């Protein structure tokens, strides 16, 4: 893969950094990749090689490119970090057998801009980023260089959700209620970096952190530090056991290695669980009324039906705050809403910690329903039927199930019925 012609330009009338990406070993089309922002943030744009090195490496690795040749000079610390990122990806995904050779000039000196002391965070309006902002502003004095002053909102990353430009503009307008109250400026970045490979599994498992890293470098003209809010707490990251990690695109073993000497990238918020973060958000009215978590609709309105909406509503119920928010279409959650809830394995920890607080808030019905869903996900029987199914699978090798299927088939094929 080659990245050429990195330059400051305009994209759809907005100031942008653009470059041409050419695949060398994979039969994929040549692409122009851009990072654009609004005129008032034009001085944030950094036309260096770092954004493209971070953004292109993992697609190149994923598609078997032999090298990544970038026009321009790379910070030696970032170059080492990219080798580390590749190391973890190759450990986690057996398909990535051969490493990509990184070819770029060495940056002899860091740029002088690190005398600027300005920190930002990625701000999606979700629980993690709202809590990270609140936590940061309570921890650091305003004069401290790590006090967040900008919230970066990306357009072009979540192509699976509501991807319409008008939804993004509306969300910008609505989230400004939080950013004004939270004393940060909302910095929108428009990018087509995901078009290098827009498969959902690749995005979640490998590419997510790199996109955030690339965007950080693209707007690093006025920043020395960017924070990425962790979506998993420490026990959640050690998903299999204490030694092994759940591989993820955005991970504490990945994100910090996208840093250069000039720009530190932090993975923050992994010491607090999602429920604790929701508690932090619930104490901040502007945030509580502007939570955006919906998987299919983000950054638009929350649907109140998808798994992530239901999870967040359960959390708000568990802390007695669902009836105080305008963020969801309903203010009361019933068992019917979550009867068919399918809990993905990766967020089991988030649901486990809800059971006791739900009971404490007098919602034993919801606690029971969550336990049942957890049982289904983890294969633990929670009622007689599940128990019989489990016994059949483990002791009878599925004979009862097969018998039932045969019986059901014979009923369907019986012409007399």
């Amino acid at each position, binding site marked *: 893969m080659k990245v050429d012609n990195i330059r400051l330009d305009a994209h759809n009338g907005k100031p942008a950094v653009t470059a041409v990406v050419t695949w060398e070993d994979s039969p994929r089309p040549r692409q122009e990749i851009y990072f654009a922002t609004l005129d008032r943030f034009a001085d944030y744009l950094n036309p260096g090689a770092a954004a493209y090195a971070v953004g292109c490496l993992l697609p190149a690795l994923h598609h078997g490119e032999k090298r990544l040749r970038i026009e321009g000079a790379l910070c030696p610390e970032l170059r080492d970090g990219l080798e*580390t990122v590749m190391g973890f990806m190759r450990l986690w995904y057996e398909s990535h057998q051969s490493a990509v050779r990184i070819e770029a000039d060495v940056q002899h000196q860091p740029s002088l801009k690190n005398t600027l002391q300005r920190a930002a965070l990625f701000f999606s309006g979700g629980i993690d980023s709202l809590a990270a902002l609140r936590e940061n502003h309570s921890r650091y004095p305003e004069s401290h260089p790590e006090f967040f002053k900008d919230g970066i909102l990306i357009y072009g990353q979540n192509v699976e959700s509501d991807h319409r430009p008008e939804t993004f503009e509306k969300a910008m307008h609505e989230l400004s209620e939080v950013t004004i109250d939270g004393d940060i400026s909302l910095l929108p970045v428009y990018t087509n970096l995901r078009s290098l490979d827009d498969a959902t599994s690749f995005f979640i498992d490998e590419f997510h952190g790199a996109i955030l890293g690339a965007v950080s470098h693209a707007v690093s003209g006025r920043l020395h530090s960017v924070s990425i809010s962790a979506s998993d707490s420490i026990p959640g990251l050690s998903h299999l056991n*204490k030694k092994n990690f759940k591989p993820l695109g955005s991970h504490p073993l990945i994100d910090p290695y996208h840093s250069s*000497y000039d720009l530190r990238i932090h993975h923050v918020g992994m010491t607090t669980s999602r429920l604790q973060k929701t508690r932090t958000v619930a104490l901040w009215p502007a945030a509580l009324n502007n939570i955006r978590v919906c998987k299919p609709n983000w950054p638009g309105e929350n649907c109140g039906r998808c798994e992530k909406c239901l999870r967040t509503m359960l959390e708000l119920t568990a802390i007695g705050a669902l009836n105080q928010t305008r963020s969801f279409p309903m203010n009361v959650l019933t068992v019917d809403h979550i009867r068919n809830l399918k809990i993905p394995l990766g967020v089991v920890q988030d649901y486990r910690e809800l059971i006791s607080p739900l009971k404490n808030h007098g919602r034993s019905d919801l606690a029971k329903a969550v336990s049942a869903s957890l049982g289904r996900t983890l294969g633990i029987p929670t009622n007689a039927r599940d128990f019989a199914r489990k016994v059949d699978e483990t002791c009878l090798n599925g004979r009862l199930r097969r018998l039932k299927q045969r019986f059901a088939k014979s009923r369907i094929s019986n012409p007399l019925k």
Partner: protein
Amino acid sequence: MKIQDFTSTEINGRKRVSARLIWEDSDRPVQELYFETPTALADGLVPDPHAFLIAGALPAMYFGEARVWVDGPVCPRLLENIDVALHWIVHWFYPRGRRPIPITAASLRPAASEKRPHAGFLFSGGVDSLATLRHNHLNYPSGHPARILEGLIIYGLEVRDDAGFGHVLKNLEAVAEDAGIRMIPLYTNIRELGPENNRAFWSDFWLTNYMGATLGAAIHALSGRFSLFSINSCHDIPNLMPYSSHPLVNPYYSSEDLRIRHEGINFSRYEKTRIISDWQAAIDNLRVCNAFRTYQQGILNCGACEKCVRTMLALLCCGVLDRSGAFAEKDVTAARIAASVTIKPNILPMYRELLEPLRRIGRADLVKAIHDKIDDCKRRERIEKWTSRTIGPLATVDKKHLNGLFGRTFRRLARRVP
């Protein structure tokens, strides 16, 4: 635990910075923790509360203190970071449900308005450490603020013998001079935080939970000098394991003004040996042997322990063992491997990666000797697994409910068998 009375004094030609650690919940005496350097090199040695906080937090948790309170200004970045480091250690090594102890400080320290960038590294003289220095100097141009200019060698952690430490300094001086860096010896009594005869403390706590923090503390004692510091990793990416010195722990001993990097996870031990193999000063002065009481002038490696033999094998694969002044022997024999090497699971990958290079240089005898040792290792592992599944639960019941009666009787009987 209260951490207070940060002082700076001069004692016997050394500058000492110290603080008092007062135990509140644990029945332990007040301790004075110190860090010293020769006065001529003491520029930047400051009684920094950060150093004593990092040194005190994990022992406080281990000995059951309810809190850590620092009577001095602490950087909010460090407060945020150390909480992450403690969370990882608790998650890995403490029972489920345990949480890190809260840390509070008398005030928050503002970030330095201007600080001269200055990079250092942990200069132990081993393969990991020298590879960090070599890789850094090959990749960071002269004048770059991340180029390593100074190496810190600590007395009181691993090496605790004056004569032995003197020999180490002599060897490292030669490397430092060749690399154009300055060497700073730092003396500390941090080991006094642990009870000398408590085996559980040294085997379970010191190595697995605390060692990274001891290094972090020593580095922060010199926070007036360094803005960036590298700790050398002993594990590469495929072999990372929960450990006190880990990429998820060491960087979290950083403050806003002093960043700590965990370096070298991109390279295996053999790759690191290759990195230093064309650097004569390094292969002449390498120190890998941990038997510091046997150090002599110019001879730091016994050449007979497992670690020495492993390093000699790697140098042999690189074709430089015969011109390395660090070892008396210029070859490794199968008999030496048979006599000296016991492969444990944590060092198994380091031997596996040597098999192919040894084959390439035509040393089938050594390949066979290593294979025999690997087979031994696997056999032991199988037995251990079987034992932990069978005898393990029985031993637990014995210990818990029978006060170890069966265990004692069994050992008594075993002693009588000739």
